[in-house]
């Protein structure tokens, strides 16, 4: 397409945003909000210190986006056709770019309720350019049994995405978001915003299997009202560099969050995962389970924060993080942290980093299972406490196969 080549947009400056909005309109985010976000992106430093002076391993400061290909057809969304049952129930699943225009009330009720980009450089960047993504709205009291399974696939330019999921009071749904890219997709920079009303129950899983050349920086934020329940599960299996951040805020009593994440860095892959659960009210619960592995020269880091604020009496939090190193060149850092300002709370955290145990290998070998196969089996089993908490048997099987393929590549 030569016409496209002539007018290709490069970089994430003001001129790029001008051209983009001129061509395809503002979509669901006002022009003012976009330019404000772009200013923040330009002004904010890359967050250098997370805690105690620890810095991002993946030096985002050196990220040079001046020549980044930015397009108005950055990705293809899929899975947006709701089933008859979903449609009858009043559930909305829509392209993010059309959400405000088509579902104004539902959109306005949720948009911006969980995400605050004011001090966040890359979330600001995503907001400024966001075009791709999903809008899912489950009205009050609607219980949808079948999962909504949708996502997007990047193409030849950077993807800026915004996915907004809103579940009304007493509503219940399962959402599986697929993130895919092509080898020519340079960047996926996105936001996922989850807003749960009282007693809402959402199971949200992300299955990220972007191409091995794509960089990803995705910020996920959830807000829970009283007695709301969120099960969030992230499989970060693709990408060259993947930065994945999840924060859930329990704003009212009775809220419960289960955060599950897994990644497996192979080749030259880096994965940086951060999870944070904020207990802002009493009698809130959270459970965090992270499993990661590294092989080849794969790098990974996990930062897990649990914050229990001063009023959150009776909060109950646990965080368990285990990492498996399958080669001498792989490296995984693990930094779990608890910050507790309330009394009478229960909080637990534990972390391990290690190799496959020789005793397990020997045991399997005495059963006739060759060593390489035993390693694969044990490594796959290591992920199972995380995999088994993803929704739907079909997705769990897909993840097992994806993990097996990564292990298989190593054995050959």
């Amino acid at each position, binding site marked *: 397409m030569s016409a496209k080549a002539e007018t290709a947009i490069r970089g994430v400056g003001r001129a790029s945003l001008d051209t983009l909005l001129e061509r395809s309109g503002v979509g669901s985010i006002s022009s003012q909000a976009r330019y404000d976000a772009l200013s923040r992106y330009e002004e904010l430093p890359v967050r250098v210190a997370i805690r105690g002076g620890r810095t991002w391993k993946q030096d985002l400061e050196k990220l040079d986006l001046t020549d980044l290909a930015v397009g108005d057809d950055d990705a293809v969304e899929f899975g947006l056709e709701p089933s008859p049952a979903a449609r009858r129930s009043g559930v909305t699943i829509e392209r993010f770019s059309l959400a405000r225009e088509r579902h104004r009330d539902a959109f306005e009720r949720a948009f911006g309720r969980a995400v605050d980009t004011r001090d966040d450089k890359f979330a600001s960047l995503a907001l400024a350019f966001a075009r791709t993504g999903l809008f899912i709205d489950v009205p009050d009291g609607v219980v949808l049994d079948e999962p909504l399974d949708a996502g997007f696939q990047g193409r030849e330019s950077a993807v800026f995405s915004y996915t907004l999921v809103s579940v009304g009071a007493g509503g219940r749904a399962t959402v599986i978001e697929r993130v895919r890219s092509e080898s020519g997709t340079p960047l996926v920079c996105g936001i996922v915003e989850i807003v749960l009303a009282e007693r809402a129950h959402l199971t949200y899983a992300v299955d990220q299997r972007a191409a091995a050349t794509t960089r990803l920086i995705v910020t996920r934020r959830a807000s829970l009202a009283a007695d709301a329940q969120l099960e969030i599960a992230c499989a970060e299996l693709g990408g060259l560099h993947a930065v994945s951040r999840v924060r859930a805020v329990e704003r009212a009593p009775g809220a419960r969050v289960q955060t599950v994440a897994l990644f497996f860095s192979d080749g030259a892959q880096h994965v940086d995962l951060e999870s944070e659960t904020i207990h802002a009210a009493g009698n809130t619960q959270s459970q965090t389970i992270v499993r990661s592995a590294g092989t080849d020269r794969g790098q990974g880091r996990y930062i897990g924060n649990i914050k229990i604020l001063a009023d959150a009496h009776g909060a109950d939090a646990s965080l368990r993080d285990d990492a498996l190193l399958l080669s001498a060149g792989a490296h995984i850092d693990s930094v779990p942290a608890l910050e507790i300002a309330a009394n009478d709370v229960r909080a637990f955290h534990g972390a391990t980093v290690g190799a496959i145990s020789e*005793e397990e290998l020997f045991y399997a070998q005495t059963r006739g299972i060759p060593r390489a196969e035993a390693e694969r089996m044990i490594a796959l089993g290591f992920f199972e406490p995380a995999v088994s908490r993803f929704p739907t048997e079909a997705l769990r099987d897909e993840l097992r196969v994806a993990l097996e393929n990564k292990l298989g590549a190593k054995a050959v």
Partner: protein
Amino acid sequence: MSERGLQITGLRANVQGNEILKGIDLTVEPGSVQALMGPNGSGKSTLAFSIAGHPSYEVSAGSVTLDGEEILGLAPDKRAKAGLFLSFQYPAAIPGVSVANFIRSARQSLHPDDLTPAKFRKLIFEQLDVLEMDAAFLSRYVNDGFSGGEKKRLEMLQLAMLAPKYAILDETDSGLDIDALGSVGASVDALRKSETGKETGFLIITHYPRILQHITADRVHIMLDGRIVKSGGPELAHEIEREGYDAIREQVAASVG
């Protein structure tokens, strides 16, 4: 050499530089049951691990042949492939791997495609019955959170499902209550009476003679300080029960002295 049997000749082995096995000679004929008895620290488990190929046990001399084939140079899985099975005293847990998948993989490695999935299921359910276990056991993770009795039952389930030529049972009776011991005995008994198991030779390693009330040994060997010091018929087990290992130790000392 085409001589049948699991033949251990002049076997010496070290653990972290200490010689634990000081020349072991022992043969397990097909279909026979050999009992190896000895106090703690006599080297019984070292013998089991050395035969199975544990990387921490260094064999310095001797040979172990399985139906004529030298197995000492082989990787542990190749020894299993040759027909060896070791029931562990302390089996390792493999979290995240179900009992069913583990046994299926093992069976597939040892006897590729010899059972249809339906026949595999039928066989494993029969064995569960013998061991008085229910089907839920199959979906649990291998030895993960198992009681002592469950671990030993899983070892017996694998023994039955893998149909080895020679099986070493290392302290299978330790930590078992009477019921579990009865199940283990019944399982070995059923295997020995079956078409696939009637030729299986057993080396039963034990501290206490009580397992030998459930599985009758053809020969009993007494091990002390890395050597077999006495061999005899089943009556030798009763002698141990009555008089303990110290009496044997004194006899040996007297004969040497």
